[in-house]
């Protein structure tokens, strides 16, 4: 149960191909973070995994069954997607919002709530610590509570794969930390969690990190290996620092790559390999993985198409190219 695989998937948004020939698998109980620059197609990838978009080539399978062959209801029992934003249903109680997750567990015309629905909704509300807010209108919750309620919805749905798009955007560090903890707690038993994250240090909390950019899967591995400055530079085209303290990995942008060559990232990568971290570090934080890491080649080699500069670079959300010029 809960084994998800992408085999040679090609994803396009309109006429623009975002990913060519992407393959990876998600094991049960795994918490996977997807990171990459704006416009790289992370959301589209999630929507493809959720079965909202049919891939142009290849297929997404859950326990060996292609997602696009399933009915909407069958699909929802296997995979769910929490988008980065949802409508604010004015006047709808938190409990009603969470109970929406039980839709696929009833026949489509069925009005009543089954006993199992009630139990599942209550358990989900308890899990995210919102039992006391159950009867409050959803719009009166704070941003962090809303996000928790939406996670409860996914939990009540009991899908084996939970896809989450930017669950921590708009949240302060405390709530973001709380949501990450919840995501981690959801990834157990047959259930796995895949989250698109922008904060690389948050991604370090996952079991595994996928880095996408330039139309390909750049890296796939444990956070310590995947969140390597060299790999990140390939994805984001800027330089990164990495620190480790008390087992926590912190990754922060350092600045533009030198030399600023926009047309050949391999040059940039070569130069990054020779770079040293010269910035100031917090007391006690030791820079690790500065420049080239032996792990980087291993991770980089995992299922990626060689030739960084070959694929067209996708624009960011504003439609501008985000590669430094």
């Amino acid at each position: 149960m809960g084994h998800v695989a992408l085999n040679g998937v090609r994803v396009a948004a309109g006429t623009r191909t975002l990913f060519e020939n992407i393959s990876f698998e998600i094991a049960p109980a795994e918490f996977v973070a997807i990171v990459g620059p704006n416009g790289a197609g992370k959301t589209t990838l999630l929507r493809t995994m959720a079965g909202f978009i049919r891939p142009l080539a290849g297929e997404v399978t859950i326990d060996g069954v292609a997602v696009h062959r399933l009915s909407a209801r069958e699909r929802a029992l296997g995979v769910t997607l929490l988008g980065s934003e949802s409508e604010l249903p004015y006047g709808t109680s938190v409990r009603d919002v969470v109970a929406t997750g039980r839709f696929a567990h009833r026949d489509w015309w069925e009005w009543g709530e089954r006993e199992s629905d009630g139990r599942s909704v209550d358990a989900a509300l308890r899990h995210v610590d919102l039992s006391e807010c159950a009867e409050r209108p959803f719009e009166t919750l704070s941003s962090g509570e809303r996000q928790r309620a939406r996670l409860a919805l996914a939990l009540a749905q009991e899908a084996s794969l939970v896809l989450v798009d930017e669950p921590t955007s708009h949240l302060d560090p405390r709530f973001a930390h709380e949501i990450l903890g919840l995501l981690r707690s959801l990834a157990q038993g047959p259930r796995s969690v895949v989250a698109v994250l922008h904060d690389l240090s948050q991604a370090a909390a996952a079991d595994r990190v996928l880095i996408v950019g330039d139309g390909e899967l750049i890296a796939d591995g444990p956070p310590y290996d995947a969140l390597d400055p060299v790999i990140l530079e390939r994805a984001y085209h800027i330089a990164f620092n990495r620190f480790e303290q008390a087992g926590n990995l912190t990754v922060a942008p350092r600045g533009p790559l030198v030399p600023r060559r926009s047309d050949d990232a391999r040059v940039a990568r070569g130069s990054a390999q020779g770079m040293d971290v010269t910035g100031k570090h917090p007391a006690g934080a030791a820079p690790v993985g500065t420049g080239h890491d032996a792990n980087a080649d291993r991770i980089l080699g995992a299922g990626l198409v060689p030739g960084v500069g070959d694929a067209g670079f996708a624009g960011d959300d504003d439609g501008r190219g985000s590669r430094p010029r």
Partner: protein
Amino acid sequence: MTVALRLGSLGLAVCAAMLLGLFVGGSALPAASVAWTLLHPHASGDVATIVWQLRAPRVCIAALVGAALAVSGFLLQGMLRNPLVDPFLTGISSGAALATALAIAAGLAIPFVPALGFGAGLLTALLVAFLARRGSGLDAERLILAGISLSALFSAFVALALTRVGRASSSTILAWLAGSIAGRGWNELFWAAPYAIAGFGLALAVVPALNALRLGDDVARAVGLDVVRANWMILSAATLLTAAAVALAGTIGFVGLIVPHLARRMLGTDGRKALVASALLGAALVPLADAASRTRWAPAEIPLGVLLAIIGVPTFLYLYLRPASATRMWGT
């Protein structure tokens, strides 16, 4: 007040409004003889004819039209998550109005007019849905734009027709446009009821889908709703209900726009309660307004749609938009 109690009182309000409609009317009949006639359905005489052949069908039609328009508005507002939407969004009323205007101008026999309006309304809704397609689905924005554009076009043709026809025809057309159930009888009701019943059945079936759609298309899709199919079903239900209502009573505004808001305010956004409440509220309001339109200024009748708007809109504005209630806009 519990949900059952609220729905129960709405049900009682429907009965009361319909009964009132039987007891009042253009010709002042003694209440006792109306009551006697109601208890003896097979009696004959003037009173029996007035009660059973004039008032009873009218009251039933009013209730059906009210419920149909309110449910149709509730469905479309829920599907498009837009509180400004009303059942005539899909151009049904303007299509029907144009067909009716042309039919009256061409001197077609009045009994054919409702059927013609029904057909033209359905055709217009189909055309709007066709224009609003994107892929296999419906695009909310395109639906609204197509509906508004076609309505504007057809209204222009109706206005043109009004300037070209004789006074007698134009007053018939205007009466139809203002919305009225004067002169409708059992035949029209039996003819339109099957479509309305099909619409109600479909509406009940899409209630779980409407509840899922409250959180937006993406969440609904994620929890297992086939959004494309659900949207077509909702649109079909709304179209059948509106077309039946328009065929019976012409263009009656207010009910389809405002009753769903009142229903949500009374019982919350859960379609299982709010849809039923919308139907009951609509079925109580329209017979009540019809009774008032028949009696208050007898023997002249104020068109039903006009009366509903004149009384209903200020009431709604007071209930809904006064500053004190701003915090409870969609309150449960």
